[in-house]
Protein backbone atom coordinates (compact mmCIF):
# COMPACT_ATOMS: atom_id res chain seq x y z
CA UNK A 1 0.00 0.00 0.00
CA UNK A 2 1.52 3.33 -1.03
CA UNK A 3 2.62 5.55 1.81
CA UNK A 4 2.92 2.62 4.18
CA UNK A 5 5.99 2.12 6.29
CA UNK A 6 9.09 1.24 4.39
CA UNK A 7 11.84 -0.31 6.43
CA UNK A 8 14.04 2.68 5.69
CA UNK A 9 11.55 5.48 6.05
CA UNK A 10 8.53 6.04 8.25
CA UNK A 11 5.45 7.75 6.81
CA UNK A 12 5.72 11.53 7.15
CA UNK A 13 5.02 12.83 10.63
CA UNK A 14 1.80 14.77 11.33
CA UNK A 15 1.90 18.52 10.67
CA UNK A 16 5.15 20.04 11.83
CA UNK A 17 3.32 22.45 14.03
CA UNK A 18 1.79 19.72 16.16
CA UNK A 19 5.11 17.92 16.54
CA UNK A 20 7.26 20.93 17.08
CA UNK A 21 5.34 22.77 19.71
CA UNK A 22 4.77 19.61 21.71
CA UNK A 23 8.47 19.46 22.38
CA UNK A 24 8.94 23.07 23.23
CA UNK A 25 8.00 23.25 26.83
CA UNK A 26 5.73 25.46 28.78
CA UNK A 27 3.90 28.55 27.74
CA UNK A 28 5.34 30.66 30.49
CA UNK A 29 8.92 29.88 29.58
CA UNK A 30 8.93 31.63 26.26
CA UNK A 31 6.98 34.66 27.21
CA UNK A 32 9.55 34.77 29.97
CA UNK A 33 12.35 35.09 27.42
CA UNK A 34 10.92 38.18 25.83
CA UNK A 35 9.91 39.64 29.17
CA UNK A 36 13.44 39.06 30.49
CA UNK A 37 15.00 40.51 27.36
CA UNK A 38 12.61 43.40 27.68
CA UNK A 39 13.46 44.04 31.33
CA UNK A 40 17.20 43.83 30.68
CA UNK A 41 16.99 46.18 27.75
CA UNK A 42 14.90 48.65 29.65
CA UNK A 43 17.19 48.43 32.61
CA UNK A 44 20.25 49.06 30.47
CA UNK A 45 18.53 51.89 28.71
CA UNK A 46 17.54 53.33 32.05
CA UNK A 47 21.11 53.28 33.17
CA UNK A 48 22.33 54.89 29.97
CA UNK A 49 19.77 57.67 29.76
CA UNK A 50 20.34 61.31 30.60
CA UNK A 51 19.83 62.26 34.20
CA UNK A 52 17.27 65.00 33.65
CA UNK A 53 14.76 63.12 31.55
CA UNK A 54 12.25 60.53 32.78
CA UNK A 55 13.54 56.99 32.42
CA UNK A 56 12.58 54.76 29.48
CA UNK A 57 10.39 52.51 31.57
CA UNK A 58 8.24 55.33 32.87
CA UNK A 59 8.05 56.78 29.38
CA UNK A 60 6.92 53.48 27.99
CA UNK A 61 4.29 53.12 30.70
CA UNK A 62 2.94 56.50 29.74
CA UNK A 63 2.44 55.38 26.17
CA UNK A 64 1.18 51.86 26.81
CA UNK A 65 -2.55 52.70 26.66
CA UNK A 66 -1.98 54.53 23.40
CA UNK A 67 -0.15 51.64 21.77
CA UNK A 68 -2.72 49.19 23.08
CA UNK A 69 -5.47 51.26 21.50
CA UNK A 70 -3.66 50.86 18.18
CA UNK A 71 -3.34 47.15 18.86
CA UNK A 72 -7.09 47.08 19.26
CA UNK A 73 -7.42 48.23 15.67
CA UNK A 74 -5.02 45.46 14.60
CA UNK A 75 -7.40 42.97 16.20
CA UNK A 76 -10.50 44.57 14.70
CA UNK A 77 -8.92 44.40 11.25
CA UNK A 78 -8.02 40.76 11.84
CA UNK A 79 -11.55 39.84 12.96
CA UNK A 80 -13.28 41.40 9.98
CA UNK A 81 -10.75 40.17 7.46
CA UNK A 82 -11.08 36.65 8.86
CA UNK A 83 -14.85 36.88 8.74
CA UNK A 84 -15.07 38.05 5.12
CA UNK A 85 -12.19 35.85 4.04
CA UNK A 86 -13.72 32.73 5.57
CA UNK A 87 -17.14 33.25 4.00
CA UNK A 88 -15.70 34.02 0.58
CA UNK A 89 -13.09 31.28 0.92
CA UNK A 90 -15.63 28.60 1.85
CA UNK A 91 -17.71 29.52 -1.18
CA UNK A 92 -14.65 29.52 -3.41
CA UNK A 93 -13.49 26.18 -2.02
CA UNK A 94 -16.83 24.55 -2.74
CA UNK A 95 -16.75 26.00 -6.24
CA UNK A 96 -13.42 24.28 -6.74
CA UNK A 97 -15.12 20.90 -6.41
CA UNK A 98 -18.08 21.85 -8.55
CA UNK A 99 -19.22 19.45 -11.24
CA UNK A 100 -19.23 22.29 -13.78
CA UNK A 101 -15.82 22.63 -15.40
CA UNK A 102 -15.90 26.42 -15.96
CA UNK A 103 -16.83 26.99 -12.31
CA UNK A 104 -13.98 24.71 -11.24
CA UNK A 105 -11.38 26.36 -13.47
CA UNK A 106 -12.53 29.87 -12.69
CA UNK A 107 -12.42 29.36 -8.94
CA UNK A 108 -9.08 27.56 -9.20
CA UNK A 109 -7.62 30.52 -11.08
CA UNK A 110 -8.91 33.00 -8.55
CA UNK A 111 -7.57 30.89 -5.69
CA UNK A 112 -4.13 30.50 -7.23
CA UNK A 113 -3.88 34.17 -8.11
CA UNK A 114 -4.63 35.45 -4.63
CA UNK A 115 -2.55 32.73 -3.01
CA UNK A 116 0.54 33.54 -5.01
CA UNK A 117 0.40 37.32 -4.69
CA UNK A 118 2.39 38.95 -1.88
CA UNK A 119 0.08 40.31 0.82
CA UNK A 120 1.69 43.74 0.67
CA UNK A 121 1.05 44.05 -3.06
CA UNK A 122 -2.61 43.13 -2.58
CA UNK A 123 -2.86 45.64 0.23
CA UNK A 124 -1.38 48.36 -1.95
CA UNK A 125 -3.71 47.45 -4.78
CA UNK A 126 -6.81 47.77 -2.64
CA UNK A 127 -5.65 50.87 -0.82
CA UNK A 128 -4.84 52.70 -4.03
CA UNK A 129 -7.48 51.36 -6.38
CA UNK A 130 -10.52 50.86 -4.18
CA UNK A 131 -12.81 53.88 -4.05
CA UNK A 132 -12.73 55.93 -0.87
CA UNK A 133 -16.49 55.94 -0.71
CA UNK A 134 -19.22 53.75 -2.14
CA UNK A 135 -22.11 55.54 -3.78
CA UNK A 136 -25.24 53.37 -3.74
CA UNK A 137 -27.46 56.17 -4.99
CA UNK A 138 -29.63 56.54 -1.92
CA UNK A 139 -26.75 56.41 0.51
CA UNK A 140 -23.05 57.16 0.29
CA UNK A 141 -20.85 54.94 2.45
CA UNK A 142 -17.38 56.24 3.24
CA UNK A 143 -14.72 53.59 3.25
CA UNK A 144 -12.09 54.45 5.85
CA UNK A 145 -8.51 53.30 5.45
CA UNK A 146 -8.79 50.49 7.95
CA UNK A 147 -11.78 49.08 6.09
CA UNK A 148 -9.75 49.03 2.91
CA UNK A 149 -7.06 47.19 4.81
CA UNK A 150 -9.70 44.67 5.88
CA UNK A 151 -10.62 44.06 2.26
CA UNK A 152 -6.96 43.88 1.28
CA UNK A 153 -6.30 41.20 3.91
CA UNK A 154 -9.45 39.19 3.20
CA UNK A 155 -8.30 38.44 -0.33
CA UNK A 156 -5.33 36.19 0.50
CA UNK A 157 -7.28 34.71 3.41
CA UNK A 158 -10.10 33.86 1.01
CA UNK A 159 -7.68 32.06 -1.28
CA UNK A 160 -6.04 30.12 1.52
CA UNK A 161 -9.32 29.12 3.18
CA UNK A 162 -10.49 27.99 -0.25
CA UNK A 163 -7.53 25.63 -0.35
CA UNK A 164 -8.20 24.43 3.19
CA UNK A 165 -11.80 23.60 2.31
CA UNK A 166 -10.88 21.90 -0.93
CA UNK A 167 -8.14 19.92 0.77
CA UNK A 168 -10.42 18.81 3.57
CA UNK A 169 -13.17 17.66 1.20
CA UNK A 170 -10.71 15.79 -0.99
CA UNK A 171 -9.12 14.12 2.01
CA UNK A 172 -12.26 12.15 2.74
CA UNK A 173 -12.17 8.62 1.33
CA UNK A 174 -14.11 8.21 -1.90
CA UNK A 175 -16.05 5.44 -0.19
CA UNK A 176 -18.07 8.07 1.64
CA UNK A 177 -19.21 9.61 -1.65
CA UNK A 178 -19.92 6.18 -3.11
CA UNK A 179 -21.98 4.84 -0.27
CA UNK A 180 -24.00 8.05 -0.17
CA UNK A 181 -24.54 7.77 -3.89
CA UNK A 182 -25.66 4.14 -3.54
CA UNK A 183 -28.24 5.29 -1.02
CA UNK A 184 -29.54 7.71 -3.67
CA UNK A 185 -28.47 10.91 -1.92
CA UNK A 186 -28.20 13.88 -4.27
CA UNK A 187 -24.84 15.61 -4.47
CA UNK A 188 -26.14 18.49 -2.41
CA UNK A 189 -27.47 16.17 0.29
CA UNK A 190 -24.20 14.25 0.33
CA UNK A 191 -22.22 17.45 0.82
CA UNK A 192 -24.49 18.78 3.50
CA UNK A 193 -25.06 15.65 5.56
CA UNK A 194 -22.04 13.46 5.01
CA UNK A 195 -19.02 15.32 3.65
CA UNK A 196 -19.03 18.78 5.25
CA UNK A 197 -19.82 17.68 8.83
CA UNK A 198 -16.80 15.40 8.68
CA UNK A 199 -14.67 18.15 7.17
CA UNK A 200 -15.35 20.77 9.82
CA UNK A 201 -13.09 19.07 12.35
CA UNK A 202 -10.26 18.79 9.86
CA UNK A 203 -10.56 22.42 8.86
CA UNK A 204 -10.40 23.99 12.29
CA UNK A 205 -6.65 23.72 13.04
CA UNK A 206 -5.51 25.14 9.68
CA UNK A 207 -8.20 27.82 10.00
CA UNK A 208 -6.85 28.90 13.37
CA UNK A 209 -3.33 28.81 11.94
CA UNK A 210 -4.37 31.20 9.19
CA UNK A 211 -5.94 33.51 11.73
CA UNK A 212 -2.61 33.73 13.58
CA UNK A 213 -0.80 34.46 10.33
CA UNK A 214 -3.38 37.15 9.55
CA UNK A 215 -3.11 38.72 12.99
CA UNK A 216 0.64 38.96 12.49
CA UNK A 217 0.22 40.45 9.03
CA UNK A 218 -1.98 43.35 10.18
CA UNK A 219 1.04 45.57 11.05
CA UNK A 220 1.52 45.88 7.27
CA UNK A 221 -1.40 48.29 7.37
CA UNK A 222 0.86 50.81 9.09
CA UNK A 223 2.77 51.15 5.83
CA UNK A 224 -0.48 52.53 4.43
CA UNK A 225 -0.85 54.93 7.28
CA UNK A 226 -3.59 53.04 9.08
CA UNK A 227 -3.42 54.07 12.73
CA UNK A 228 -2.67 50.80 14.41
CA UNK A 229 -0.05 49.74 16.93
CA UNK A 230 3.07 50.09 14.77
CA UNK A 231 2.04 53.53 13.53
CA UNK A 232 1.22 54.59 17.06
CA UNK A 233 4.55 53.30 18.34
CA UNK A 234 6.35 55.35 15.71
CA UNK A 235 4.27 58.39 16.63
CA UNK A 236 5.01 57.89 20.32
CA UNK A 237 8.73 57.67 19.70
CA UNK A 238 8.50 60.79 17.59
CA UNK A 239 6.65 62.64 20.31
CA UNK A 240 9.38 61.72 22.75
CA UNK A 241 11.95 63.31 20.49
CA UNK A 242 13.30 60.04 19.06
CA UNK A 243 15.48 59.40 22.07
CA UNK A 244 17.71 56.46 21.15
CA UNK A 245 17.36 54.68 24.49
CA UNK A 246 13.62 54.36 23.98
CA UNK A 247 13.67 52.26 20.83
CA UNK A 248 14.45 49.00 22.64
CA UNK A 249 11.63 49.06 25.18
CA UNK A 250 9.07 50.36 22.71
CA UNK A 251 9.74 47.80 19.99
CA UNK A 252 10.14 44.96 22.46
CA UNK A 253 6.79 45.93 23.91
CA UNK A 254 5.26 45.72 20.43
CA UNK A 255 6.72 42.26 19.95
CA UNK A 256 5.53 41.24 23.38
CA UNK A 257 1.89 42.17 22.87
CA UNK A 258 1.68 40.26 19.62
CA UNK A 259 3.40 37.28 21.20
CA UNK A 260 1.10 37.39 24.19
CA UNK A 261 -1.91 37.34 21.85
CA UNK A 262 -0.77 34.76 19.30
CA UNK A 263 1.09 32.19 21.37
CA UNK A 264 -1.86 31.07 23.52
CA UNK A 265 -4.01 30.74 20.39
CA UNK A 266 -1.36 28.59 18.76
CA UNK A 267 -1.11 26.31 21.80
CA UNK A 268 -4.89 25.97 21.95
CA UNK A 269 -4.95 25.02 18.29
CA UNK A 270 -2.47 22.22 18.93
CA UNK A 271 -4.53 20.89 21.80
CA UNK A 272 -7.60 20.92 19.55
CA UNK A 273 -5.74 19.10 16.82
CA UNK A 274 -4.67 16.39 19.21
CA UNK A 275 -8.20 16.06 20.53
CA UNK A 276 -9.66 15.65 17.05
CA UNK A 277 -7.01 13.13 16.07
CA UNK A 278 -7.95 10.86 18.96
CA UNK A 279 -11.69 10.89 18.29
CA UNK A 280 -11.50 9.82 14.64
Amino acid sequence: MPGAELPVLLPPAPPARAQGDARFGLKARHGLYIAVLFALATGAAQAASDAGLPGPFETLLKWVPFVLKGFGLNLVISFFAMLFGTIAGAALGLMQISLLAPVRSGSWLVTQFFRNSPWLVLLFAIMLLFPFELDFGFVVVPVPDWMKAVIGFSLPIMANISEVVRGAVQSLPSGQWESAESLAFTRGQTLRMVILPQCIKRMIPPWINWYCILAMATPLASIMGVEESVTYTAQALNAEGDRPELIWPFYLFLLLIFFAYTYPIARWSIRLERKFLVKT
Partner: protein
Amino acid sequence: MEFFADFFRNLYETTGLNFVIFYEEYEAVRFVNAIWTSLKLIVICLIFSLVVGIVGAWAQGAKSRVVRLGMAGYIQFFRNTPPFVQLLFFYFVVGTTLERAGLMPLVDEGGWTEPLIGNFGWAVISLGFFAGAFNVEIFRSGIEAVPTATREAAEALGYTRLKSYIYVVLPLAFRVCLPALNNNLVNLLKTTTLAYAIAVPEMMYTANQIWSDNVNVPEMMLVLFIYYVALVGVLVWLMHRWERKMRIPGYG
Protein backbone atom coordinates in the same frame (compact mmCIF):
# COMPACT_ATOMS: atom_id res chain seq x y z
CA MET B 1 14.09 46.79 -29.27
CA GLU B 2 13.08 50.16 -30.60
CA PHE B 3 9.94 48.63 -32.05
CA PHE B 4 9.06 47.38 -28.60
CA ALA B 5 9.48 50.84 -27.11
CA ASP B 6 7.52 52.49 -29.90
CA PHE B 7 4.65 50.09 -29.44
CA PHE B 8 4.25 51.09 -25.81
CA ARG B 9 4.68 54.77 -26.51
CA ASN B 10 1.94 54.41 -29.09
CA LEU B 11 -0.20 52.54 -26.62
CA TYR B 12 0.11 55.40 -24.19
CA GLU B 13 -0.76 58.00 -26.74
CA THR B 14 -3.75 56.18 -28.11
CA THR B 15 -5.26 54.52 -25.05
CA GLY B 16 -3.67 56.27 -22.10
CA LEU B 17 -2.25 52.99 -20.81
CA ASN B 18 1.13 54.07 -19.57
CA PHE B 19 3.71 51.28 -19.42
CA VAL B 20 6.48 53.81 -19.09
CA ILE B 21 9.05 51.23 -18.06
CA PHE B 22 9.09 49.90 -21.57
CA TYR B 23 9.71 53.09 -23.50
CA GLU B 24 11.56 55.49 -21.26
CA GLU B 25 15.17 54.69 -20.57
CA TYR B 26 15.37 56.12 -17.07
CA GLU B 27 12.42 54.11 -15.88
CA ALA B 28 13.55 51.02 -17.76
CA VAL B 29 16.91 51.12 -16.00
CA ARG B 30 15.23 51.54 -12.62
CA PHE B 31 12.94 48.63 -13.40
CA VAL B 32 15.75 46.30 -14.44
CA ASN B 33 17.76 47.22 -11.33
CA ALA B 34 14.70 46.47 -9.27
CA ILE B 35 14.40 43.02 -10.82
CA TRP B 36 18.04 42.37 -10.11
CA THR B 37 17.87 43.57 -6.50
CA SER B 38 14.69 41.66 -5.86
CA LEU B 39 16.10 38.43 -7.26
CA LYS B 40 19.28 38.89 -5.24
CA LEU B 41 17.23 39.46 -2.11
CA ILE B 42 15.03 36.43 -2.71
CA VAL B 43 17.84 34.01 -3.52
CA ILE B 44 20.04 35.09 -0.61
CA CYS B 45 17.10 34.95 1.80
CA LEU B 46 16.15 31.47 0.61
CA ILE B 47 19.68 30.16 1.00
CA PHE B 48 20.15 31.79 4.38
CA SER B 49 16.88 30.40 5.69
CA LEU B 50 17.82 26.92 4.47
CA VAL B 51 21.16 27.12 6.25
CA VAL B 52 19.46 28.31 9.43
CA GLY B 53 16.97 25.46 9.08
CA ILE B 54 19.63 22.78 8.69
CA VAL B 55 21.82 24.06 11.50
CA GLY B 56 18.80 24.58 13.73
CA ALA B 57 17.45 21.09 13.11
CA TRP B 58 20.85 19.73 14.05
CA ALA B 59 20.95 21.86 17.17
CA GLN B 60 17.54 20.60 18.22
CA GLY B 61 18.98 17.14 18.60
CA ALA B 62 21.89 18.39 20.67
CA LYS B 63 22.67 16.87 24.04
CA SER B 64 22.93 20.19 25.82
CA ARG B 65 19.61 21.24 27.35
CA VAL B 66 20.56 24.89 27.14
CA VAL B 67 21.06 24.67 23.39
CA ARG B 68 17.73 22.93 22.92
CA LEU B 69 15.90 25.47 25.05
CA GLY B 70 17.60 28.26 23.20
CA MET B 71 16.40 26.83 19.90
CA ALA B 72 12.89 26.45 21.29
CA GLY B 73 12.90 30.08 22.39
CA TYR B 74 14.18 31.26 19.04
CA ILE B 75 11.53 29.32 17.14
CA GLN B 76 8.62 30.41 19.31
CA PHE B 77 9.76 34.03 19.16
CA PHE B 78 10.00 34.16 15.38
CA ARG B 79 6.82 32.20 14.79
CA ASN B 80 4.57 34.17 17.10
CA THR B 81 5.59 37.75 16.35
CA PRO B 82 4.84 39.74 13.20
CA PRO B 83 7.60 39.47 10.59
CA PHE B 84 7.13 43.13 9.76
CA VAL B 85 7.79 44.17 13.34
CA GLN B 86 10.77 41.79 13.42
CA LEU B 87 12.17 43.59 10.39
CA LEU B 88 11.69 47.01 11.90
CA PHE B 89 13.23 45.75 15.13
CA PHE B 90 16.34 44.44 13.40
CA TYR B 91 16.84 47.49 11.23
CA PHE B 92 15.86 50.35 13.53
CA VAL B 93 16.70 48.90 16.91
CA VAL B 94 19.54 46.42 16.52
CA GLY B 95 21.10 48.14 13.51
CA THR B 96 21.22 51.65 14.92
CA THR B 97 22.34 50.41 18.33
CA LEU B 98 25.26 48.59 16.79
CA GLU B 99 26.17 51.64 14.75
CA ARG B 100 25.97 54.00 17.67
CA ALA B 101 27.97 51.68 19.84
CA GLY B 102 30.63 51.64 17.18
CA LEU B 103 30.26 47.91 16.68
CA MET B 104 29.21 48.15 13.06
CA PRO B 105 32.14 47.85 10.67
CA LEU B 106 32.12 50.49 7.97
CA VAL B 107 32.80 49.91 4.30
CA ASP B 108 34.63 52.52 2.30
CA GLU B 109 32.51 53.42 -0.72
CA GLY B 110 35.15 55.79 -2.00
CA GLY B 111 34.23 59.14 -0.55
CA TRP B 112 31.73 58.04 2.09
CA THR B 113 31.32 55.07 4.34
CA GLU B 114 28.40 52.66 4.49
CA PRO B 115 27.66 50.32 7.34
CA LEU B 116 28.54 46.75 6.47
CA ILE B 117 25.01 45.60 7.13
CA GLY B 118 22.70 48.12 5.52
CA ASN B 119 18.99 47.83 4.86
CA PHE B 120 19.52 44.99 2.38
CA GLY B 121 21.60 43.10 4.91
CA TRP B 122 19.13 43.51 7.74
CA ALA B 123 16.31 42.42 5.46
CA VAL B 124 18.21 39.23 4.71
CA ILE B 125 18.98 38.60 8.38
CA SER B 126 15.46 39.31 9.60
CA LEU B 127 13.61 37.41 6.88
CA GLY B 128 16.17 34.61 6.89
CA PHE B 129 15.72 34.00 10.60
CA PHE B 130 11.94 34.27 10.22
CA ALA B 131 11.69 31.63 7.52
CA GLY B 132 14.52 29.72 9.14
CA ALA B 133 12.40 29.16 12.26
CA PHE B 134 9.77 27.39 10.19
CA ASN B 135 12.43 25.49 8.28
CA VAL B 136 13.90 24.12 11.49
CA GLU B 137 10.58 22.47 12.31
CA ILE B 138 10.13 21.22 8.77
CA PHE B 139 13.58 19.66 8.72
CA ARG B 140 13.06 18.27 12.18
CA SER B 141 9.89 16.44 11.14
CA GLY B 142 11.78 15.11 8.13
CA ILE B 143 14.65 13.86 10.29
CA GLU B 144 12.27 12.19 12.67
CA ALA B 145 10.74 10.26 9.80
CA VAL B 146 14.04 8.44 9.52
CA PRO B 147 13.69 5.47 11.89
CA THR B 148 16.32 4.77 14.51
CA ALA B 149 16.90 1.43 12.83
CA THR B 150 18.28 3.18 9.76
CA ARG B 151 20.54 5.37 11.86
CA GLU B 152 21.80 2.34 13.77
CA ALA B 153 22.49 0.57 10.52
CA ALA B 154 24.58 3.50 9.37
CA GLU B 155 26.47 3.51 12.64
CA ALA B 156 27.05 -0.23 12.41
CA LEU B 157 28.65 0.37 9.02
CA GLY B 158 31.13 2.70 10.64
CA TYR B 159 29.66 6.13 9.85
CA THR B 160 30.38 8.77 12.47
CA ARG B 161 27.34 10.67 13.75
CA LEU B 162 28.16 13.65 11.56
CA LYS B 163 28.76 11.53 8.46
CA SER B 164 25.59 9.50 8.93
CA TYR B 165 23.72 12.78 9.26
CA ILE B 166 25.13 14.05 5.99
CA TYR B 167 25.00 10.89 3.91
CA VAL B 168 22.04 8.94 5.27
CA VAL B 169 19.70 10.95 7.46
CA LEU B 170 19.57 14.27 5.65
CA PRO B 171 18.94 12.91 2.15
CA LEU B 172 16.07 10.78 3.41
CA ALA B 173 14.72 13.58 5.55
CA PHE B 174 14.74 15.96 2.61
CA ARG B 175 12.55 13.72 0.50
CA VAL B 176 9.91 13.61 3.19
CA CYS B 177 9.74 17.29 3.99
CA LEU B 178 9.97 18.66 0.46
CA PRO B 179 6.28 19.60 0.09
CA ALA B 180 6.22 21.55 3.35
CA LEU B 181 9.55 23.15 2.51
CA ASN B 182 8.21 24.17 -0.88
CA ASN B 183 5.32 25.93 0.80
CA ASN B 184 7.57 27.79 3.20
CA LEU B 185 9.99 28.95 0.54
CA VAL B 186 7.13 30.30 -1.57
CA ASN B 187 5.94 32.22 1.47
CA LEU B 188 9.43 33.61 1.99
CA LEU B 189 9.51 34.83 -1.58
CA LYS B 190 6.28 36.72 -1.03
CA THR B 191 7.45 38.06 2.33
CA THR B 192 10.51 39.73 0.78
CA THR B 193 8.17 42.54 -0.29
CA LEU B 194 8.32 43.72 3.33
CA ALA B 195 11.76 45.08 2.56
CA TYR B 196 9.86 47.95 0.97
CA ALA B 197 9.40 49.40 4.42
CA ILE B 198 13.12 49.86 4.94
CA ALA B 199 13.69 51.30 1.48
CA VAL B 200 15.40 48.35 -0.12
CA PRO B 201 15.11 49.15 -3.83
CA GLU B 202 13.49 45.86 -4.80
CA MET B 203 10.45 45.47 -7.01
CA MET B 204 7.72 46.61 -4.64
CA TYR B 205 9.65 49.73 -3.65
CA THR B 206 10.69 50.67 -7.17
CA ALA B 207 7.23 50.10 -8.59
CA ASN B 208 5.96 52.49 -5.95
CA GLN B 209 8.52 55.07 -6.98
CA ILE B 210 7.68 54.67 -10.63
CA TRP B 211 3.98 55.12 -10.15
CA SER B 212 4.54 58.08 -7.89
CA ASP B 213 6.56 59.76 -10.61
CA ASN B 214 4.40 58.78 -13.56
CA VAL B 215 0.93 58.49 -12.06
CA ASN B 216 0.30 55.11 -13.66
CA VAL B 217 -0.76 53.06 -10.67
CA PRO B 218 -3.01 50.49 -12.42
CA GLU B 219 -0.40 49.70 -15.08
CA MET B 220 2.44 49.32 -12.60
CA MET B 221 0.18 47.32 -10.33
CA LEU B 222 -0.46 44.92 -13.19
CA VAL B 223 3.27 44.61 -13.88
CA LEU B 224 3.86 44.02 -10.18
CA PHE B 225 1.29 41.22 -9.98
CA ILE B 226 2.58 39.55 -13.11
CA TYR B 227 6.13 39.76 -11.79
CA TYR B 228 5.41 38.09 -8.47
CA VAL B 229 2.95 35.52 -9.73
CA ALA B 230 5.47 34.57 -12.43
CA LEU B 231 8.30 34.32 -9.88
CA VAL B 232 6.20 32.14 -7.60
CA GLY B 233 5.35 30.00 -10.62
CA VAL B 234 9.02 29.57 -11.42
CA LEU B 235 9.91 28.66 -7.85
CA VAL B 236 7.08 26.13 -7.62
CA TRP B 237 8.15 24.59 -10.90
CA LEU B 238 11.75 24.29 -9.72
CA MET B 239 10.63 22.68 -6.47
CA HIS B 240 8.43 20.20 -8.33
CA ARG B 241 11.34 19.18 -10.49
CA TRP B 242 13.44 18.71 -7.41
CA GLU B 243 10.67 16.69 -5.77
CA ARG B 244 10.39 14.45 -8.79
CA LYS B 245 14.11 13.90 -8.90
CA MET B 246 14.15 12.96 -5.24
CA ARG B 247 11.16 10.66 -5.32
CA ILE B 248 11.75 7.25 -3.77
CA PRO B 249 10.06 4.56 -5.86
CA GLY B 250 7.43 2.73 -3.85
CA TYR B 251 7.06 5.37 -1.20
CA GLY B 252 3.94 7.61 -1.19
